[in-house]
């Protein structure tokens, strides 16, 4: 049975309307509703299902971030994860924490905890990097399957169906391996009250990047964050002929 590691990130809830800070250095996060990154939730759900099928022995969830990040860990624990690891990074250090740092942290913990399978969300919906699974695979030199829509775990390998443009690709990886979860992998469960209560008693281990020997000096500088261009207002035309004339005028037909 495999030991599984999942990564969870606390991000702005995807149902919230995003506001860019006036100085364009990032987005407004104060007083904004946060939740677990939806792709991470899918990763957690998949790990829990593996455990329910007796294909996983223990699931560890890890998060990197300030104190509030523990909310995401609690949610993961309530869904069925066994143990949480909180790598505390706060203030300006968290603002410049990048996929390369997270990947190094994940790699280190995977080695320390003797992990066989890492399942990560394909990307976090706040920075859209889509790099962590890939870089972790690089640091560990483990096989990688991105954008999984199906995971079937065997004795010494794992078969992953990947969502690719216009179809699927099925690959088999030798364990230990890393898989990144896509939207269609599963539909995450709701944590039930008894499990939410049990989760409060589950252990959360606190670590710092230093404990793991990871240097968090930023490698990338964010120059500016901007709103997408606003759509121009439409125009109502009286009839089809005018419509065609207008389209021709603008070179659309």
């Amino acid at each position, binding site marked *: 049975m495999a030991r599984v590691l999942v990564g969870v990130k606390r991000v*702005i*809830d*995807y*149902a*919230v309307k*995003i506001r860019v800070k006036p100085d364009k250095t990032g*987005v407004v996060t104060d*007083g904004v*509703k946060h*939740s*677990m990154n*939806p792709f991470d939730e899918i990763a957690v759900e998949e790990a829990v299902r593996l455990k329910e099928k007796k294909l996983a022995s223990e699931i560890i969830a890890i998060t990197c971030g300030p104190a509030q990040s523990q909310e995401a860990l609690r949610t993961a624990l309530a869904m069925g994860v066994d143990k949480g690891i909180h790598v505390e990074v706060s203030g300006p250090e968290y603002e410049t924490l990048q996929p390369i740092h997270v990947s190094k942290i994940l790699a280190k913990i995977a080695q320390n905890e003797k992990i066989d399978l890492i399942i990560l969300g394909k*990307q976090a*919906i*706040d920075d*859209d990097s889509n790099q962590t699974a890939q870089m972790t695979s690089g640091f560990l030199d483990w096989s990688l399957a991105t954008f999984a829509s199906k995971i079937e775990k065997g004795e010494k390998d794992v078969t992953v169906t990947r969502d690719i443009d216009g179809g699927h690709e099925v690959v088999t990886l030798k364990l230990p391996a890393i898989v990144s979860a896509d*939207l269609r992998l599963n*539909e995450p*469960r*709701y*944590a*039930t*009250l*008894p499990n*939410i*209560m049990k989760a409060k008693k589950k252990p959360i281990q606190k670590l710092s990047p230093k404990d793991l020997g990871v240097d968090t000096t930023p490698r990338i500088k964010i120059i500016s*964050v901007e709103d*997408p261009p606003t759509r121009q207002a439409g125009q109502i035309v009286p009839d089809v002929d005018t419509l065609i004339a207008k389209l021709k005028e603008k070179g659309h037909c």
Partner: protein
Amino acid sequence: MLTQMIIRKLFNLRNANKRNNLKLSQRCFSSHLPELTKNRYSVKRGNYAVLTEDHKQFFIDLLGSTRVITNPDECLSYNVDWIKNVRGYSTCILKPKTTEEVSNILAFCNDNRIAVCPQGGNTGLVGGSVPVFDEVVLSTSLMNKIYSINDTSGVLVCQSGCILENIDNALEEHGLMAPLDLGAKGSCHIGGNVSTNAGGLRLLRYGNLHGSVLGLEVVKADGEVIDLLSTLKKDNTGFHLKHLFIGSEGTLGIVTKVALQCPPKPRAVNLAFLGLQSFEHILRTLKRAKQELAEILSSCEMIDASTLDVCTDNLKLKSPLSQYPFYMLIETHGSNNEHDQEKLNKFLEDAIAEEYILDGTTTNEINKMKHIWDLRERITEGYTKDGYVFKYDVSLPIEKFYSIVPAMREKLANEDTVRISGYGHLGDGNIHFQVSAREFSQQLLKKIEPYVYEYTSDLRGSISAEHGIGFRKPKYIHYSKSSGSIKIMKQLKTMFDPYGILNPYKVLP
């Protein structure tokens, strides 16, 4: 950020249809039209003028041809209610944009004895918003301007045809929210909400519209505009006339503008969905919730197992829990999430420990809360897929809240029904009770009515808690109102609308 938008779309796709369904179902009328109301319920047409070309020309001169609809196909959706219970055959739909236009229309109709059916979002459930015969439909759909929102006082002033959800979205920019929320919010108009005194899901916390409407502008049947558009919280000068137009279903006047007192949008919202064994346990949970969640409790709803099936079977929604005889939704609104969560969790832990709640889930994630609310808000829509629905909306003393369901199941044991079930606003003592059958049947109707009203009346309940009287219930109003009060209502009607042109055949017997 971009993914944030894409994922929002994808998730919405995955949980397809949503509320748009309601709007869709209002448009797709080709199949299964209900029988004409005048035939099904054998009503006699009042002595009103039959619309002539000259009348139509007057409307066209007033509004322009695009705002006078006479094409039968386009008229159809205005003639049928969305649960397909009733159908009229109006050939003229008017879409004014201003109070002045409404005033001119009514003055003309009053002089020519043309009957008028006011219509908002047409989401009513008692046939109050569609014509019975050929009444001219006055739709408020183009009266959709929001005039002002005051951040400090929380007062919003708008036209009556604003869609509730649009109002709510506009208020959100100011840190406020609409004082009412209901399943039909994506379609219903605030003027219709006011005219029917709509209740909704959070009446328990924010009170009803008699409290939150500060002022109204109303047009009387003769076209006179009555300015009651106060924006003051306190105003004890003379009779409080606005209340006459709240809940009188467009029979005394047409609401054209509304001033609403809006509460701040809560910073912390939590929702619990619970599974319970019996109605006794529900009562216990309600009592404890009121005591322990106290000032943060914003909604307390109940759904029975058979009702939840219309969501899971008919609409293919997923329930987060396995099967239980009863379910409850408990929501909190507050300003500090840590405080609220602690309170809610303590309450739920105790309830589980004492075993009056069997299972449950709790969340404050926006989309998860929405999915859970869908299980409650989309029941009406899910029910329509059963076939024909006999819908009742009664207030009962809280101890007897659910008793009507087993009583009705017993009475209809030998009838051909699909489902007999109840759900509703537990915290307000208001149960929505319904019987669905594959199709409408007079025999079944006679078994249900007036029994359901007698049952309610015997317990001193209300035969219409929040849906109103509309077309379907005038002859039963006496089960809830004394003859003295009905007499005064009739006198008021004659005073405001001497020729009875406003929403005839509705409300009063």
